[in-house]
């Protein structure tokens, strides 16, 4: 199952995109309560979105972004656009999802 849930809706030529990504977003500053060791940093660094193959937004995240991050942005677009969101984290994991703008 994809880690990305997204919704997009067009109104007056502007598409509002909302997305939720399932990710722990560990800062690397938290300690494991049992062992006292630091939990290694694990967070999304880049999120990228394209509409019909054209770049819409590139996002850089640090560890300060909340767990299971929520994201919203707007772009000039139309109903039926093919919208892609992808992310990559500091451990090299990645995922992407495409959807159609309603």
């Amino acid at each position, binding site marked *: 199952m994809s880690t990305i849930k997204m919704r997009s809706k067009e109104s007056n030529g502007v598409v509002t995109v909302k997305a939720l990504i399932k990710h722990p*977003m560990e*800062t690397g500053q938290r300690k494991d309560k049992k062992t006292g060791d630091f939990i290694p940093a694990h967070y999304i660094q880049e999120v990228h979105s394209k509409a019909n193959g054209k770049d*819409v*937004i*590139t996002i850089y995240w*640090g560890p300060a972004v909340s767990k299971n991050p929520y*994201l*919203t942005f707007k772009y000039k677009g139309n109903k039926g656009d093919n919208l892609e969101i992808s992310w990559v984290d500091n451990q090299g994991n990645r995922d992407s999802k495409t959807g159609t703008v309603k």
Partner: protein
Amino acid sequence: MNRRNFIKNSMLFAGSLVAVPSLIVSRKAYAAWPKKSFDIKDLTESVSSVYGHSNLEESSKVKLKAPEIAENGAIVPINVSTTLDNVESIMIFVENNPQPLSSGYELTSLSEPSIGTRLKMGKTSNVMAAVKSGDKVYTSTQEVKVTIGGCGG
């Protein structure tokens, strides 16, 4: 340190040597995740590492929407929008976090300058939204009071 890490680190080091003088001044330098800017622990230094200078201008055209009091510092909703034209990027800084730069949004000609996310905040702090339009950086700052910090264990 295993071999893979070693190679990665030495590449990072080589990369930073090239990039140091004008870290993220040009658009091209944005192409990779700006590790250095995210690591800086001081707000002013963080700002100048992102923009190459720290001449900020407070502007009412930058709209920062953040709660006055956040009960849970682990989830602080932040929305930034602006009526400025030609917006290149939006950055959100949280002054009292271990690393002030929380996130950056690089826009294109397609995007509208309006973004929202949720941040972690360790303690009560000023949150600053910075919008780069043309050569200038416009900001809006608001204090968010945090009752329970979101960075501890």
